[in-house]
């Protein structure tokens, strides 16, 4: 059995850990609020964007755009978006596992797979496979639209050059503070956006004056659309990461509390045993003197 001092030290240590995890929990919850407002601000932009895209796809000749070209799929590129930092439970592991599963499924079909990793955790995970085409790390902490633009541009160039025939984005979907799920979205070829609000919209779209032509507008809009998809994925991951960390840290804190309780019990028992032992010694000594 460990000595009293050992147990005492351990209690102090665990209490300190609990302090750290508690602080991390609070930091994560503050950051989560920031990430959520960012997400909400972006929602207005992306919903408008979808609306305009659906207006446009009605009028335009779709097959003419290089970014919309549907080819026989020989190479699939998977853009894996994770966080840069760990200590957020199984959040990143879930995304990476799904990506790996996808990779195996595609390879079983005889397709080649390459990765673009956004966030340190995915690039570390897939480094050993040797299939990482490009990795963007250390941007998840304070990413901006132009980060998304840079990545989107690179992915689009690669697609147009024919080095990838299909691009998917894998990210952690922020369902709620308690639930985050890995999710897949197809990015390239660009899908014509389904009409959001039905027939009435179509009627208007025919009357639009376009400047320049619909085709040229599409040329400008499509790269922007890719930015929107990627930025959205990054925002979701940003929020999910903090939510996941909050939960993980809360669990850690309560686990610490349990350990401290147990250890205190052990400590008190040991202390009592020691006192009893000493008393026995004293009583035994006194008895011996008497006799």
């Amino acid at each position, binding site marked *: 059995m460990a000595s009293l001092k050992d147990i005492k030290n351990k209690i102090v240590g665990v209490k300190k850990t609990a302090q750290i995890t508690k602080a991390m929990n609070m930091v994560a919850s503050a950051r989560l609020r920031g990430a959520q407002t960012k997400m909400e601000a972006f929602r207005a932009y992306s919903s*408008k964007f979808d609306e305009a895209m659906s207006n446009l796809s009605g009028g335009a000749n779709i097959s003419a755009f290089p970014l919309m070209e549907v080819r026989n799929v020989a190479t699939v590129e998977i853009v894996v978006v994770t966080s840069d930092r760990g200590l957020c439970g199984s959040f990143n592991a879930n995304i990476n596992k799904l990506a790996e599963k996808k990779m195996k499924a595609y390879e079983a079909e005889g397709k080649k797979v390459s990765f673009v990793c956004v966030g340190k955790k995915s690039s570390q995970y897939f480094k050993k496979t040797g299939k990482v085409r490009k990795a963007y790390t250390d941007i998840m902490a304070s990413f901006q*639209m132009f980060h998304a633009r840079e990545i989107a541009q690179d992915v689009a160039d690669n697609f147009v050059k024919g080095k990838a025939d299909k691009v998917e984005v894998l990210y952690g979907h922020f369902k709620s503070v308690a639930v985050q799920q890995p999710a897949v979205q197809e990015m390239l070829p660009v899908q014509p956006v389904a009409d959001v609000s039905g027939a009435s919209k179509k009627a208007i779209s025919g009357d639009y004056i376009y400047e320049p032509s619909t085709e040229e507008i599409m040329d400008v809009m499509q790269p922007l659309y890719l930015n929107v998809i990627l930025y959205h994925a990054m925002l979701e991951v940003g929020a999910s990461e903090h939510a996941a960390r909050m939960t993980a840290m809360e669990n850690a804190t309560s686990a610490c509390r349990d350990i401290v309780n147990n250890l205190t019990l052990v400590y008190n028992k040991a202390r009592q045993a020691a006192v009893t032992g000493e008393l026995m010694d004293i009583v035994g000594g006194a008895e011996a003197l008497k006799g």
Partner: protein
Amino acid sequence: MAQQIRLEVVTPNGAVVSEDVDIVNAPGYGGDFGVLANHAPFLSTIRIGLLSYEQGKKRENLMISGGFCEVSNNKITFLVESAEIGQQIDVDRAMKAKERAEQRLAKAAQHDDLINRTRAEAALQRALARMKVSKMS
């Protein structure tokens, strides 16, 4: 009171302007254009430049870049990557960005690097537009 049109300027970081205004002037793909109330449905891409609107006697200037604008149902919506109100523009930063962009441009011209050149040109244009808009307001 003349009829007004609803102006909304939306960026990825949230809405910048949401007001009823008399007239909107914007840098369109084929040149600057003005939009009054009850304009026909219209969709155009936007160059980097000055967006101004008037509301009675008040006139506001904004610097906008990269995106498009849509007019429908007496509402004009700008979806742009960045939008900054004239008075809030950081001129020093724009000045530095201009110098940086010029250097990059010179370097790219030497190496005949098309991608970097277009990027640097865009950055230069943004910086110039910021300075111009801030001077006007």
